């Protein structure tokens, strides 16, 4: 097993200026919960063909989901490839009113439905629009035949907890591939001190990006370098009082922070970042006051949050790789855990 601590320690100058929160996880933010559902099975389809299912769903619930409210969000998509539902409201109205679910591209419709059901079951007027990010895990999984059902997505939502988040080949992370090695889920957090107050910035990433040429890993099935890149997903949260233009600005920077893992030839990955602030919750439609009073952080302090967020994103990406157990998938393909020295190359130490 890799020694993640040692690598992250070595990289202290890049990801260690701010200290991590208690769990070093997105769940360090008050009220944030994460749940996984992992489906790892080999079955026969009705025609008798074997189907390799290496998929799942990962849910991030940014605030107590039974509460009828919405929170500010800022998002940025660099080269969109997959589906992002709820994006129009997130981009135009700049709020989030739903859990965030990461699942495979063929399960997006089911997840959409599941989030609505989840809200109705909790007695919410609605959790619309559902925020779902679709990932392509077809390198290891027979994605077309691996559509999750509503119950499975619901279980990821219902089992979401504020405890330590499982990382690596778990949830939607099971079938992911990054830099030609096993990708997956990673999380990290940073504590930001401003005046007498302490705030937390936490991120959860799903790594399904990165060109294998970068680490010269040829994999086990032909030339995986020809297999298309997919996306890096960054879900971030802060409890700092920020309004949408500030969140969007930070989201852009978090997307950029990933670029230090890339080389010029690696042009085709997409990066999706959604960042939310739990600090100024607002009432829903036609409820609450006409005008909200809110405390908003001064722009001069944004840089600090960008620094902390960038550290957390880098560490979360590294953790997603280090914690990802090897997975054998369809057509006998195997993705191995990235070796330590390859991590070094990736980080261009």
């Amino acid at each position, binding site marked *: 097993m890799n020694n993640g601590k040692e690598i992250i320690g070595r990289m202290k100058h890049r990801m260690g200026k701010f200290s991590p929160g208690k769990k070093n996880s997105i769940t360090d933010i008050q009220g944030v919960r994460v749940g996984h559902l992992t489906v790892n099975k080999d079955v026969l389809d009705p025609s008798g063909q074997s189907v390799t299912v290496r998929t799942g769903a990962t849910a991030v619930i940014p605030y107590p989901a039974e509460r009828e409210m919405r929170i500010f969000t800022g998002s940025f998509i660099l080269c969109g490839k997959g589906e992002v539902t709820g994006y129009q409201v997130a981009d135009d109205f700049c709020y989030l009113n739903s859990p965030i679910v990461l699942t495979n591209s063929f399960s997006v419709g089911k997840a959409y439905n599941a989030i609505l059901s989840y809200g109705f079951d909790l007695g919410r007027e609605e959790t619309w629009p559902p925020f779902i990010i679709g990932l392509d895990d077809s390198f290891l999984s027979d994605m077309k035949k691996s559509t999750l059902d509503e119950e499975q997505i619901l279980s990821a939502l219902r089992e979401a907890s504020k405890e330590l988040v499982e990382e690596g080949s778990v949830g939607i992370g099971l079938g992911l591939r990054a830099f030609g090695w096993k990708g997956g889920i990673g999380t990290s957090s940073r504590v930001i001190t401003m005046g007498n107050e302490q705030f937390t910035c936490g991120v959860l990433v799903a790594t399904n990006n990165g060109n294998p040429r970068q680490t010269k890993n040829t994999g086990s099935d032909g030339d995986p370098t020809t297999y298309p890149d997919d996306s890096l997903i960054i879900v971030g949260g802060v409890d700092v009082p920020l309004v949408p233009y500030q969140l969007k600005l930070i989201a852009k920077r978090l997307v950029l922070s990933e670029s230090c893992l890339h080389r010029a030839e690696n042009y085709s990955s997409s990066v999706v970042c959604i960042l939310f602030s739990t600090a100024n919750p607002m009432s829903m439609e036609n409820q609450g006051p006409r005008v909200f009073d809110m*405390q908003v952080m001064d722009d001069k302090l944004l840089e600090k949050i960008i620094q902390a967020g960038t550290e957390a994103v880098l560490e979360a990406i590294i953790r997603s790789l280090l914690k990802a157990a090897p997975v054998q998938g369809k057509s006998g393909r195997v993705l191995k855990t990235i070796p330590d020295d390859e991590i070094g190359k990736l980080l261009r130490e």
Partner: protein
Amino acid sequence: MRRRNFIKGALVGISWPQAETLFKSVRFQQKGGNAVSDAPRKRLRELGIQIGTLEPGPCNAITDVDGVKVGHTTIVKGDGSQAVRTGVTVIFPHSGNIYEEEVFASSFILNGWGEMTGMARLEQTGKLETPIFLTGTYNVGIVYDAAVRYLSGINPEMGISDKMLTPVVAECFDEFLSDARSRAISKEDVFQAIMNAQGGSVEEGGVGGGTGMTAFGFKGGIGTSSRKVDGQYIVGVLVMANTGSRDQLRIDGIPVGKEITDSHSKTGKTKSIILIAATDAPLLPYQLRKVSKRVALGLAQTGSISHTESGDIILAFSTANRILRKKAGPFHNLKAINDFWITPVYQATVEATQEAILNALTSAQTMTGRDGNTAYGLPLGQVKAIIRKFKRIRE
């Protein structure tokens, strides 16, 4: 009448050389500006035409938003190929020092064939930190330079030990009536507009940045209007209109342009329109972006189709939250309207935009400029008759 008030207002608190410059420009105006006699100009409402259902503010102008000030410098001189019909209009978002107290702002570019400087920073920071200047296309550099000089003059640390600013300077192309290539504007003209800035009624038509502008085949220029929202807030719009063709012109939904029968309507190609919306409703930048989009809807109601070569650029700002640059402590206490109560602001925006554009047309006098090109004032008698014919007149 309004023009005389303008001169009087301008003379208060300025030195003699400045006043002399102003007199000069007025003299030129009388010589070259109104070469063709024209019926007295009116605002749209004075013709008995009301747009929408909301009530305008006291001046029916962007200056109804408390603290907003508008100033013009009008330059009309020469004839023939050297005729100059240009100027600059400045809008101050509030009466304080905007360098020290920023306001939230956002923009919407309906069609990007134009220039509005300062946008990169404005969209990034979500804030307006300078006055807004409207002028002719080729004047942008001179106005920008003057704006930087003015801003650095009143903020000595700017660009040395404190933040640099990127002034907002927007343009339309006034080459039909003016020898635009001569760039016959000086930094003193810009300072003059700054000194002229005041609240209350705003002079409209062929004045300030709007001096040489044409719209919908007629003389265009500066127009403004405002609406009250729930008796609590004001939305004001000011435009510099230089866009649209005559066939497209609609007033309150009526295809007035198609019905006008006189023959003189050639004003060259349609060009651009700059639209500025101001409100005292507490809006955050993302909400102001949404308001900016509604400004485009108001433009559409005048019949404009946002022609390929029309730079249709919109900026909206809210004066409700002042962001203090030298704020002690990390946080600001701000207000933001609930998204689900914002619709009346949109209605006010669409109505005021439409009326502001039409006010530019009804207020603008016929003007002859470069190479004898003439832009005729919208024939108000005919407009009234057409609208009466459509049984939409309110008397």
